[in-house]
């Protein structure tokens, strides 16, 4: 598969290749090798001073990842803030408030804007400061640098320049991209850990050119000079082309010579290297892409609502200004008290059109209260607080790794509540990426008595099915399911040795020698111990060895070999040493095997081989690989055990195990040397077809093999994965598995996770390997289209509603179906299938599939993965979740949320997602409601002032409305609201569908809230006006002036919106009470304080509460009736909905409220089981299917008995 499974290829391309040759490129070949535009960089080694000036002045090693610096912060951050259309509007309004057009004092416009923008900018500044500190920490790191005259001294990373020779010591990070010159090992190798680059924890071997091996002490650098010509900085981590001009010879450089910044030196005391790329030129920095900024659907919709409000704003402003122009033209000339003759253009009856136009500006500012200025900032605050709750959730804390869940970007919290499709990586996400050697088949005999998890689960099912009957379906079903879950989670087989769960006395403790096929078994163990590319590491604690292997199954093999008595203990350039112990009584014998060649693994070859010469001089080719590949390459006389092994392989596969076949071949000397000559030639070929050549030659050797046996390792599922998948399925989520693994493994895991089950119809899309045909593409596509159409028809024709389909597709086929003309057919088929498994998928394809689902279905997608190969998918999906487990940080860095175990996804989505969605949705609706309710009262009042732009409220009231008086209650709503408790969320996963269906933020609801706002504004205005008409409003005979009317109305508004939010809330802790009622109290306190201030500030509001309103009963009476009148419709609506159209959470709340869950357990259970989404995957579906099957069988039996009776 071209470009397939990058991760695999990458690993294996780095491996320690033992063949001792390094192509040196002669002078004559030089022109063909470089000179292209990509070779433009020249590095003068050990002469950093040359890099101080042009043209060799490359970027320094100082890095910065901050968005702003001291100078750019203000303009850039302001620009960011004013990209929001609402903020632009308020900025304009604030600017205009300095002109006479404004209906308000400048401070009342500028203060809220400054507050809101200042708060957001402070947040930006804080975040950037943190990034800056992080950068500084890195820049200040110290490293040993050659200062000249063979002296090395410590220097900060930021001061390193290209051309510097640095000495990096054990467990230090490389400060820049280096060319490895020499190491503490004689042969110039060193081990590096590249966790920060690709997330892989295994060590990789790098080696220096032979010519620089001598440069292995400080003194040697006194007179060292060399020139490197190489490619320009680029983000490709796995390629490097260049050459090294040293002592008048030119040597080609390979990726293997390069030590990349941010990887770490391990197991090597020190290395010397010369800086090639520094700072932002280094590959890791070039790779640092800013993750795309994602916005949630709710926020996008919110923007649209803001546009709606803007339209409304413009509409009423236009109405106002037209009204104003007419009144100014027709009536104002008669209003002598306004001195219409001596007026400005603002109120000029002779130029009414101009006045009307200017009034439009006034009105746009005046009615600005329709647009909630503090909405964005409130939402930001709320989301940050929600994120801290997510981070602090103790139930998403993993004791083993010490990681807690982390909301890395808080602006997607509510999106978590709307996820429709989960696209999951397999390795490291669903599975632990820890392999246990469980079984093997040697010489046609299967060994290993332990069962795999899948087998245990299956047998458990069988048991329960046998006892299951169809009476009391709900009850027994519950118990059974719970029992099973308990069983699974409480019964972990804890292997005493990591990677080895094998148990069979026939092979253990040296007993294998007594087996009849001991010779083959010996060979089997030797293949395990020799055919790999791992490095042993002495374990000081136990005195044994641990293995740094390229893949976990390889490590499992070595552990197994060790346990069987074949301990791999040392590896040199050319040999592998094995301590063999044939039986417990015998002594250890250390044997040396010369490794002649290593034929690497890659995903295309699906096999690896080593050619070894043992002590007696015999040459063997040892090979392990995918069973299908090995079986194709067996010699005629090598098929002795084929049928038995094949049978065992099938069994293992069904048990969810990962299998490999092992084979060998004996070579004679001449055959080998002929082949080796060719192989060397191929290896030294320069040019693009080298790889193909090597592959072809390798292929020639890996033939006529003799089958030895097969291994089966268990890819352990992560804790709680099946349960989590079950719950997620019940919550209505679709789960797609995208894996780089092969199809068989993926299917096994699918079974283990209950994504697949027996009886499910599997639709496998595949392409025929037809390389010869000219229009292979076209043929493949046609056949695929046929397959898709057939499958779709099959699904459409399916009558049985319980029938489930699974779609399985591999990467190669995906390349075709992801093309534009096919992808929609594919998607249509895929969404009709209960589960979709994509195997052999490249990282790029993962991203493409994610995009297809995201764009094709228009629903929210969530991608979860742990490795560097998942980054694309994580960034592409609406929400990216990274598993912060063993495999480095790459996925986590790219993700929006990180959790340490797949099973936490359930809580993250079903609890936090559900809550956050509802909170944000309610909060935004309420925001619009309150601003419409308030803003429209201003408009109604206008109609009574000749549309002159006078506000009935004091400027200070308006200023405080959004920023102080109504902001905190809505924030508490957004942070603390819970419709049901977290336990209930988990027990009723179907509640999650409210988010998927977007029940709380659809247009129906939004418009409903807007109408509520409209009604409220009408009620507030007309009730207040009606009560405070021209009559005296106090027993003292005083009449109401504008300040009295405005303050009464405003008090009513404060009460109304706060009572409204109290009606919305389902969950009152002391915090909500404090903020809701505190806001009302604050208003009165403010009024008292404001009334006490100098009358030049407070104007007609001077002493208004204490003197005028407080003693007036009508003030209080008006507040009460307005509050009641405004909220009764909502209350009625709510009561009505709950009574006649209850939503799920209403019912659950009531059950809880009446304590039905305790008193009436049966009913609680029934409701719980009803609250599950009809799902076709997961445990529950499996059990359901089985129950149906049994029932059908019973029915049939009953039918047949009755028939027989009739006869």
């Amino acid at each position: 598969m071209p470009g397939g499974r990058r991760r695999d290829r990458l690993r294996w391309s780095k491996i320690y290749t033992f063949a001792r040759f390094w192509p040196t490129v002669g002078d004559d070949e030089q022109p063909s090798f470089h000179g292209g535009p990509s070779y433009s960089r020249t590095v003068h080694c050990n002469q950093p001073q040359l890099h101080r000036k042009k043209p060799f002045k490359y970027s320094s090693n100082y890095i910065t990842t901050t968005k702003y610096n001291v100078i750019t912060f203000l303009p850039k951050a302001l620009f960011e803030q004013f990209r929001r259309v609402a903020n632009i509007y308020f900025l304009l309004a604030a600017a205009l408030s300095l002109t006479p057009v404004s209906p308000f004092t400048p401070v009342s416009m500028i203060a809220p804007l400054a507050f809101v923008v200042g708060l957001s900018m402070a947040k930006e500044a804080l975040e950037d400061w943190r990034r800056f500190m992080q950068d500084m920490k890195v820049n200040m790191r110290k490293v040993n640098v050659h200062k000249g005259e063979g002296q090395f001294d410590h220097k900060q990373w930021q001061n390193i320049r290209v051309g510097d020779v640095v000495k990096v010591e054990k467990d230090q990070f490389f400060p820049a991209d280096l060319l490895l010159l020499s190491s503490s090992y004689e042969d110039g190798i060193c081990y590096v850990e590249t966790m920060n680059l690709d997330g892989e924890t295994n060590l990789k071997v790098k080696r220096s050119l032979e010519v620089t091996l001598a440069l292995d002490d400080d003194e040697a650098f006194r007179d060292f000079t060399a020139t490197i010509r190489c490619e320009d900085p680029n983000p490709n981590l796995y390629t490097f082309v260049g050459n090294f001009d040293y002592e008048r010879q030119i040597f080609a450089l390979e990726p293997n010579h390069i030590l990349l910044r941010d990887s770490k030196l391990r197991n090597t005391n020190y290395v010397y290297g010369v800086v090639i790329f520094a700072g932002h030129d280094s590959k890791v920095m070039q790779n640092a892409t800013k993750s795309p900024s994602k916005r949630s659907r709710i926020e996008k919709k919110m923007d649209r609502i803001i546009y709606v409000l803007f339209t409304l704003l413009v509409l009423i402003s236009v109405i106002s200004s037209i009204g104003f122009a007419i009144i100014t033209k027709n009536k104002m000339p008669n209003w002598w008290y306004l001195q219409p003759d001596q007026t400005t253009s603002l109120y000029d009856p002779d130029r009414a059109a101009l006045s009307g136009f200017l009034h439009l500006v006034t009105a746009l500012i005046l009615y600005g209260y329709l647009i909630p200025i503090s909405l964005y900032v409130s939402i930001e605050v709320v989301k940050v607080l929600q994120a801290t709750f997510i981070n602090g959730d103790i139930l998403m804390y993993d004791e083993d790794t010490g990681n807690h869940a982390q909301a890395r970007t808080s602006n997607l919290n509510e999106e978590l509540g709307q996820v429709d499709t989960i696209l999951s990586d397999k390795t490291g996400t669903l599975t632990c990426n820890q392999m246990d050697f469980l079984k093997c088949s040697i010489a046609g005999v299967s060994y290993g008595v332990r069962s795999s998890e899948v087998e245990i689960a299956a047998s458990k099912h069988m048991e329960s099915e046998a006892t299951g009957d169809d009476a009391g379906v709900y009850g027994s079903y519950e118990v059974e399911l719970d029992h099973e879950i308990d069983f699974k989670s409480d019964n972990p087989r804890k292997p005493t040795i990591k990677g080895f769960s094998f148990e069979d006395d026939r092979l253990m403790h040296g007993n294998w020698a007594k087996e009849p096929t001991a010779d083959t078994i010996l060979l089997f163990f030797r293949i395990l111990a020799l055919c790999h590319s791992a490095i042993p590491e002495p374990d000081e604690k136990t005195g044994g060895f641990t293995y740094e292997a390229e893949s976990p199954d390889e490590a499992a093999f070595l552990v197994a070999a060790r346990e069987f008595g074949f301990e791999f203990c040392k590896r040199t350039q050319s040999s592998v040493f094995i301590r063999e112990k044939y039986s417990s009584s015998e002594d250890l014998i250390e044997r040396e095997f010369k490794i002649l060649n290593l034929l690497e693994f890659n995903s295309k070859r699906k096999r690896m081989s080593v050619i070894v010469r043992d002590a007696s001089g015999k040459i063997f080719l040892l090979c392990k690989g995918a069973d299908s590949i090995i079986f194709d390459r067996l010699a005629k006389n090598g098929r002795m055990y084929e049928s038995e092994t094949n049978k065992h392989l099938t069994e293992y596969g069904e048990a969810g195990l990962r299998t490999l076949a092992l084979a060998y071949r004996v070579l004679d000397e001449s055959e080998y040397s002929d082949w080796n000559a060719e192989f060397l030639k191929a290896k030294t070929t320069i040019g693009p077809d080298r790889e193909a050549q090597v592959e072809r030659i390798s292929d020639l050797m890996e033939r006529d093999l003799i089958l030895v046996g097969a291994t089966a390792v268990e890819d352990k599922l992560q804790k709680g994965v099946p349960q989590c998948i079950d719950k997620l399925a019940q919550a209505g989520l679709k789960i797609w598995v995208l894996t780089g693994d092969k199809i068989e493994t993926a299917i096994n895991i699918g079974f283990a996770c209950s994504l697949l089950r027996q009886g499910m119809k599997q639709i496998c899309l595949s392409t025929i390997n037809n390389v010869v045909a000219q229009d292979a593409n076209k043929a493949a596509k046609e056949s695929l289209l046929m397959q898709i159409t057939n499958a779709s028809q099959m699904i459409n024709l399916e009558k049985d509603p319980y029938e489930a389909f699974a779609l399985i597709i591999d990467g190669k086929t995906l390349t075709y179906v992801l093309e534009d003309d096919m992808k929609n057919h594919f998607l249509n088929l895929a969404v009709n299938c209960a589960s979709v498994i994509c195997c052999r998928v490249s990282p790029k394809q993962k991203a493409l599939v994610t995009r297809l689902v995201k764009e094709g279905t228009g629903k929210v997608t969530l991608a979860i993965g742990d490795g560097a190969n998942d980054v694309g998918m994580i960034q592409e999906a609406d929400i990216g979740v990274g598993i912060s487990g063993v495999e480095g940080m790459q996925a986590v860095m790219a993700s929006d949320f990180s959790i340490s175990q797949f099973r936490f996804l359930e809580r993250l989505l079903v609890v936090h997602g559900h809550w956050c969605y509802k909170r944000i949705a309610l909060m935004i609706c309420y925001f619009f409601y309150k601003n419409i309710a308030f803003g429209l009262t201003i408009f109604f009042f206008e109609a009574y002032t000749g549309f002159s732009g006078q506000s009935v409220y004091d400027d200070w009231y308006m200023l405080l409305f959004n920023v102080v008086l109504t902001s905190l209650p809505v924030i508490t709503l957004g942070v603390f609201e819970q419709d049901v408790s977290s336990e209930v969320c988990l027990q009723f996963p179907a509640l999650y569908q409210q988010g998927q269906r977007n029940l709380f933020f659809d247009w129906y609801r939004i418009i409903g809230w807007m109408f509520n706002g409209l009604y409220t504004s009408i009620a507030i205005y007309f009730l207040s006006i009606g009560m405070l008409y021209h009559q005296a409003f106090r027993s003292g005979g005083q009449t109401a002036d504008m300040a009295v009317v405005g303050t009464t109305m405003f008090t009513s508004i404060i009460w109304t919106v706060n009572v409204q939010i109290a009606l919305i809330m389902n969950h009152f802790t002391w915090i909500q009470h404090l903020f809701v009622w505190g806001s009302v109290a604050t208003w009165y306190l403010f009024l008292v304080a404001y009334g006490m201030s100098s009358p030049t500030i407070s104007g007609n509001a001077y002493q208004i509460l204490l003197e005028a309103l407080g003693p007036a009963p009508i003030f209080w009476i008006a507040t009460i009736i307005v509050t009641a009148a405004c909220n009764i419709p909502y209350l009625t609506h709510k009561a009505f909905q709950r009574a006649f159209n209850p939503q799920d959470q209403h019912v659950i709340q009531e059950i809880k409220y009446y304590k039905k869950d305790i008193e009436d357990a049966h009913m609680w259970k029934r409701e719980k089981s009803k609250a599950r989404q009809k799902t076709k995957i997961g445990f529950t579906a499996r059990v359901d299917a089985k129950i149906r099957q049994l029932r059908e069988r019973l029915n049939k039996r009953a039918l047949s008995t009755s028939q027989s009776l009739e006869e």
Partner: protein
Amino acid sequence: MNNSAASTSSGSGDVPAPRRNSNRPKYSRFTQQELPACKPILTPRWVITVFTLIGVIFVPIGVAALMASNKVVEIVYRYDAVCIHGNTKDEKVAYIQNANTSKTCIITLTVPKDMDQPIYVYYQLDNFYQNHRRYVKSRNDAQLKDSDKANDTSGCDPEKTTPDGSPILPCGLIAWSLFNDTYSFSIGNQNLTVNKVGISWKSDRDHKFGDNVFPRNFQNGTLKGGASLNESIPLSQQEDLIVWMRTAALPTFRKPYGKIEQNLRVNETITVIIQNYYNTYSFSGKKKLVLSTSSWLGGKNDFTGIAYLTIGGLCFFLATAFAVVYLVKPRYVLLQI
């Protein structure tokens, strides 16, 4: 049959004690969002109770408010039409603007019911936009309060200075257009004294209008607006001005003129001599003279009572409706999923 399904999800409290990791989030009921909370639910009982309660509270308030309003005796007399000569608007305006014509106008009012003192005298203007932005803004509070700031006339456009440039005090359109009709009352031959002291807010007199601030250059301009002020009386005692400066919210408004501190008996006839100076004819505004007693709720206005009765009644209706509905169609728990 224990509720074992819960064990897969909950079990919050019994997480093993922290051993090594400082990373471990701290447990508190707050951070785990488990604070004790009351979760009010609109159960039928609550719905009916709440609506009934609102009804029970609102109806008596409504009744009380209506009674209070009914107790108030109010005499409203529109005099702008009777106290003018001329038929067309222009004639009326010309008449009212002519300084030489007599503006005196005598009307009689009959007391419909016994009126206990104090009886408040109001003038009521219609179609007068005291709430027009140009008008509302045209004042300077600092100037009114502080004798040092007499020259501070900012914001008073277009009535800032006299043509020769000296600052007007009180400046601005509001003061300039001060209402200047006067009323004097008598029953038979006996004059009814109208107490014009204390008709404004005390805080206005004490803190907003300075007792050492005297009118200056007021109504000296080419255009004469409304009333003139006695330059020897400090602003704090010019209560008509203080009252007028409190701009009304609506184009129809009443402002206190004075108090009659004497009981009036039913069918008594009051003679009112009106000096009809104020020009409302330009904009066809009505002028009314109002005599009104007051109740605990203020003047006569049935709106409050009716509103309360309506909402109270509505709540009773809703309570009954919900009660009936709950009885007829009792709720049973059923998930809709």
